[in-house]
């Protein structure tokens, strides 16, 4: 079993990339892998209470771990505006996950 870390830096309103990333994550999860989605830069807007936030909620119910970068959240004034269950973490947490031996990383 592989740990897959997907890092999303794009917002869900400009390109199809966030939908693609979510599809990759859901497929990887369905095949038995551990999947984490880490939102950075404009990617944190995906976790707003919105239609895409609901998609993330469904992904979380299927076992995908979802985290967001604290500085990206704060700089956009999104404190309190994200779905409640997203884990807001500092960038060292992302780095820890990136360098784990059994984790594959894809940055979008």
């Amino acid at each position, binding site marked *: 079993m592989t*740990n897959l870390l997907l*890092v999303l*830096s794009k917002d869900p309103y400009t390109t199809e990339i966030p939908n693609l990333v979510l599809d990759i994550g859901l497929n990887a999860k369905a095949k038995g892998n*551990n999947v*984490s989605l880490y939102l*950075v*830069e*404009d990617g944190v807007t995906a976790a707003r209470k919105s239609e895409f936030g609901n998609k993330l909620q469904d992904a979380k119910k299927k076992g995908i*771990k979802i985290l967001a970068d604290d*500085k*990206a959240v704060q700089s956009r004034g999104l404190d309190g505006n994200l779905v409640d269950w997203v884990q807001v973490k*500092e*960038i*060292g947490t*992302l*780095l*820890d*996950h*990136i*360098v*784990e*031996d059994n*984790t594959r*990383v894809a*940055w979008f």
Partner: protein
Amino acid sequence: MKITHEWHGSKVTKMANNGYNKTLTIVSINGPYRDEAAYTLIRLAHAAKEKGINVNFFNYLDGTLIGHRDQAPKEFPVVEQLFGTVLKKGLKNPKVDAIACIKCTDARGVTKQQTEGVVIGGLYDLGEWTAESDKTILLG
């Protein structure tokens, strides 16, 4: 000193600080000021320094503009200065090295304008770094 934390239900133990000898290679393909990627890679590098992780920067395509000297944005922090500071901090263990792709710098006319600490190299260097590093990520 050892740190143990939980990652997907399993306990992971690793050495902290200078006992942690992993190396991360970061490939950048975008220039500064278009988005936050340059700032993100600098934040990653500072976090890596704190955790004792070696960092290799491979600046490729427009990423070679990150280390361009004499940047003067009116409203944003100067990426070249932030990047240069990371390189200076990385002179000792854990190390931070930076290579800019020569074909990319030549094409953009910035080969001789790279900030102190950036070495001009090529894709063969990236191949070696990828082979030697624990992880290689591409920010694009």
